[in-house]
């Protein structure tokens, strides 16, 4: 029973994955926030002992397979931002949501830049301006993600 409540973590990540591969019109695609990164950052902030680097690694591999990218292309930046988060979460957790959002923007931007960087190496350069769109939307969405996942976490009695 005590293990069962951790199921909500997996379910929330699954929901995030669905949001990542849900078909959208072409012009909206570049605004799609990285739901997986947002969800992972939340859990690693709330339960850093449980959701750490290995968690990020396996989530990333699944994300890469679903998106059809190179295995590791989304995993590497996820690892990096979760690593940064694991070092900073104690300071970030106490900030107001609006301040947290700025931190989230920076993390998402790092993620985005690394993914685009690998695309560039593969010969698919991405227009520079599109870098900022998705992290920006992610930043705007963060307070809601935070509140929703926090309520879920409290309902599931995870701490």
């Amino acid at each position, binding site marked *: 029973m005590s293990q069962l409540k951790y199921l909500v973590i997996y379910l929330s990540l699954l929901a995030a994955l669905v949001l990542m591969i*849900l078909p959208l019109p072409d012009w909206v695609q570049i605004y*799609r926030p990285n739901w997986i990164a947002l969800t992972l950052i939340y859990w690693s902030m709330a339960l850093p002992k449980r959701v750490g*680097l290995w968690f990020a690694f396996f989530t990333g591999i699944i994300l890469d397979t679903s998106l059809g*990218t190179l*295995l590791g292309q989304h995993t590497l930046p996820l690892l990096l931002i979760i690593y940064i988060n694991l070092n900073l979460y104690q300071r970030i957790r106490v900030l107001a949501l609006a301040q947290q959002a700025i931190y989230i923007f920076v993390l998402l931007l790092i993620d985005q830049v690394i993914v685009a960087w690998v695309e560039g190496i593969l010969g698919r350069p991405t227009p520079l301006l599109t870098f900022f769109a998705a992290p920006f939307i992610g930043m705007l969405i963060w307070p809601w993600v935070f509140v929703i996942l926090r309520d879920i976490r409290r309902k599931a009695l995870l701490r």
Partner: protein
Amino acid sequence: MKTIIEVRGATLQALFLIGFCIAMMVVDHRFQHLEIVRTNISLALSPLRYLVSLPATGGNWLNDWFTSHTELLEENESLKAEGRILSARLQKLEILAEENARLRNLLGSSRKIADEVIVAELLSVDQNPYSQLIEINKGSSDGVAMGHAVIDDFGIMGQVIHVNPQSATIILISDPEHAIPVQFIRSGTRSVAFGRGSTRQLELRYLPATADIMVDDELVTSGLGGRFPPDYPVARVTAISEDKVRGFVSVLAEPKARLDSSREVLVIKPRQ
């Protein structure tokens, strides 16, 4: 409080995993070893993919359900008309095919015309927005294999790059990583058409300035390289630009296939 040892442990772990990721990317890019990992994860996730494509499928289904009687009659009528036209054309085609076979026999060439195909449907799954990959609902259990060419009603769409038991990933001819050997129908000049990342454009680079090319020339697969079967329509020339200094011509062409809107596709199985 964290001790220094703990922090170092996490850092080491992060460095190790990041290094592992880089190694994995290189291996995945250059070799096929990780295909098995990809296939297994894809298989485990396939219910999710069907779930995601459900709204689109459900939408179509509802649409069909609520189409009014008169509309159905109209559609039926127009389809019948189209059927008549097509069968009329087919008669002509059959005669041509026979004639072609006879002539080929005369020439002693053994090439057959019919290819075996598998009908597949696109799964509405968005992948990486920067690369031109699509997913179809047929996989290795239906006979689809890596490298098979994929066409729609109008021309070549791409080729299979990953196969799972129930689905497959197609790289479109417009992907910047993709190149397809082509031939001009009119002049017979052979070349290679590269994708440019836009579904409406292919590029043919470094053609000799003396090549006989005109706007509106049709391009078909040349069959060289053995990946794509020969003589399928690929593109139509839209622009020709000359590099006077180096004496090359580069050509832009518009793909025949509806790369961004076709829902039903055919996978061509190469003849044994």
